[in-house]
């Protein structure tokens, strides 16, 4: 699965996710990637989110929208909301994976709870980060 989130000069955010699914999948299985709210979500009032991991758990947790909701309804920061979802709520239902997210101020967060995460970002200072988290 691959994905991207961005904030432009106008403060508009967007998210995109694409996947080839899981090796040996059958029965027309789909994961969270194409599901708005589960694997992808964007709202200028909160954030843009793209997820990766075992999709079934992200669907059950409506993960991407959950991050947005915690910001909108509970007033959490982007980082606190994303950490709450990935490190607590997702784990509590047995979910593995992570997400990338950006808010309309250009703040970035990229939490995950499993290995093998391929990440890159450029923040509002122009600082580039690029790593494979093992």
């Amino acid at each position: 699965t691959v994905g991207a989130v961005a904030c432009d000069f106008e403060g508009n955010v967007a998210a995109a996710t694409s996947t080839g699914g899981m090796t040996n999948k059958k029965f027309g299985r789909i994961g969270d990637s194409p599901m708005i709210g589960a694997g992808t979500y964007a709202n200028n009032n909160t954030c843009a989110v793209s997820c990766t991991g075992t999709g079934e758990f992200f669907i059950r947790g409506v993960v991407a929208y959950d991050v947005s909701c915690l910001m909108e309804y509970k007033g959490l920061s982007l980082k606190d909301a994303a950490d709450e979802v990935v490190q607590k709520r997702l784990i509590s239902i047995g979910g593995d994976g992570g997400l990338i997210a950006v808010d309309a101020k250009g703040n970035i967060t990229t939490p995950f709870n499993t290995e093998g995460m391929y990440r890159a970002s450029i923040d509002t200072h122009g600082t580039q980060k690029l790593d494979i988290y093992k």
Partner: protein
Amino acid sequence: MKKIAIAIHGGAGTLLKGIMTPDKEISYKKSLETALNAGYKILENKGNAVDAVTEAVRILEDSPLFNAGKGSVFTNAGSHEMDASIMNGENLEAGAVSLISGIKNPILLAKNIMQKSEHVFLAGTGAMEYANLLGYKLEPEDYFYDDFRYNQWQEIKDSDNFQLDHNVQKDSKFG
């Protein structure tokens, strides 16, 4: 300080020792950097966030290293089924596509659904019909073939197991 920012991801899964060689790691990082910079350049040039994320994902889809587009894994039937979605935070418009085959860049089709149709989510044969309507050309099966992905599939194709993106351990927690 610029307000613009972008982040990308290239999957999730277990990295088995010996599989991720130094050369491979360089290739992965180079591909990530190319996609990241392409998206960022759009933002720097006053482009919008939708176009930036589309371009970053499109580039990752064209790489055989990541499980999307060209690098998509094999299904139980030996085919490739791809999914993609996109959402615009400015107006909450969204587009998604699922269970499609032969489309080089599913993210472009998702974007087309968002911007050109009245719908949000198209799947399977209907989505393929819509792609055909928009003039999408289908890539041959060998465009999506990759030895590594094929061997991953061969290891488990006669089982009920399935594997996440970069997982190569047959009996891992993902299987």
